[in-house]
């Protein structure tokens, strides 16, 4: 896909920043045990909005039931302060959870494990709130033989769903977008899986958000010229290596029309 093709619609490629939330704070996992406190979610969200982030995703905001009221209040605080769209995900187990977070002010919910275990929740959420509120997150891993496997429970459990049929199924069920995380790329810093992103984006009629592997601004350009509708990253922005503005400037210099 050429720059010209990428620019043929007025719709622009989106740069999305992901924030992991634990107990009301944004955290960064350095390894399985240690979590580094990154700061207040509302403050960080506003900082990223000011950098030019097109959207934000808050993950694990809702992971534990005990923290539910705190998490809902936080979502309302974010909705009141942010003037760009945001998605919440992680630990939404039933339709009531989805409803609670959308009613609290989230623009969209990301469903991963629950989408696999109870796929009807995609249809139910789309019916009740509209497809635009549903993002199905798909964690996919490519093994050394090139075989693609779909994983749930934070990448710990392989499921039987065939990857491409699952992508098509979630679109048929009414998801508005697919958040495609290439586990084999995650943490490598070698860039998004552009080939896989392109395959999904060209063949599934919903927006595809590429995730996993981003380290430089070039990785964004590569993904957007391989049909990614949006790209999501966390580390390269949280570390301060890049601002969203720097990535967008690079994309603009390369000829892509960005916000």
């Amino acid at each position, binding site marked *: 896909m050429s720059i010209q093709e990428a620019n043929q619609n007025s719709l622009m490629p989106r740069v999305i920043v992901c924030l992991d939330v634990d107990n009301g704070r944004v955290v960064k996992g350095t390894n399985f045990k240690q979590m580094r406190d990154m700061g207040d979610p509302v403050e960080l969200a506003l900082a990223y909005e000011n950098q030019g982030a*097109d959207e934000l995703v808050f993950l694990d905001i809702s992971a534990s039931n005990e923290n539910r009221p705190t998490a809902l209040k936080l979502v309302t605080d974010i909705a*009141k302060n942010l003037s760009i*769209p945001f998605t919440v995900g992680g630990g939404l187990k039933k339709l009531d959870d989805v409803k609670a977070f959308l009613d609290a002010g989230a623009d969209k919910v990301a469903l991963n494990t629950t989408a696999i275990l109870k796929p009807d929740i995609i249809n139910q959420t789309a019916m009740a709130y*509209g497809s635009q509120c549903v993002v199905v997150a798909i964690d996919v891993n490519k093994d050394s033989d090139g075989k693609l496997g779909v994983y749930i429970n934070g990448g710990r459990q392989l499921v039987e769903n065939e990857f491409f049929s699952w992508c098509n199924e979630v679109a048929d069920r009414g998801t508005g977008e697919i958040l495609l995380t290439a586990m084999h790329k995650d943490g490598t810093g070698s860039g998004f899986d552009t080939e896989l992103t392109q395959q999904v984006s060209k063949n599934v009629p919903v927006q595809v958000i590429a995730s996993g592997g981003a380290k430089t601004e070039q990785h964004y350009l590569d993904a957007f010229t391989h049909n990614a509708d949006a790209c999501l990253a966390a580390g390269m922005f949280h570390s301060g290596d890049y601002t969203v503005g720097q990535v967008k400037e690079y994309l603009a210099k390369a000829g892509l029309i960005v916000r």
Partner: protein
Amino acid sequence: MKKILIIDTKAGNLFSLKAAIERLGFSATILAAPDDNVFDGIVIPGQGRFGTVMKNLNANQWPDYLQQAKTKNIPMLGICVGMQIFFEGSDEDPEAVGLGWFSGKAQKLNFPKKPMVGWAKLDSNIWPQSIVYFVNSYAVKQSEHSIATTFYGEQFCAAVKQNSFVGVQFHPEKSSEAGAQIIAQALSGNTARSNGDLI
């Protein structure tokens, strides 16, 4: 302080919209049914399906209220489905009848992917270069009252204006600074062409 009414169409949370209006220094009151208070501006929010929104508006006598507000030239802002209801109908719920202030209807357009999700630049004299956030599967293709268009698979109407009413297909409350300016203009009733002429 300008007093703004947000009509609660019972189709989604209104936190972002209320906050966006309050950030402009206006007060915002959410009402499910009309009351006797006088407002300086009215917002019809952008959540929900066409049929559900029309049903809830009709059930609470909003159409008469809006008609009167129109006669009094009170600034009104319809967002997304809140803009579409001012047309005759929508393919989303063909049996539902819109307010019919504008001819035409919302249609399923030739979008490459549905729903359209994301930021797009407006082609508009009033809001030149404005980049705003769209989330929609349906849209009005063209209108004689169009003041902005954009392109996604095909060109469609991104905003309409007639007298004190402004309708936008995008979500200004989710469109950062560009959206805030559009809300402020629409609710102040001073949406002008770039040459300064009021339309």
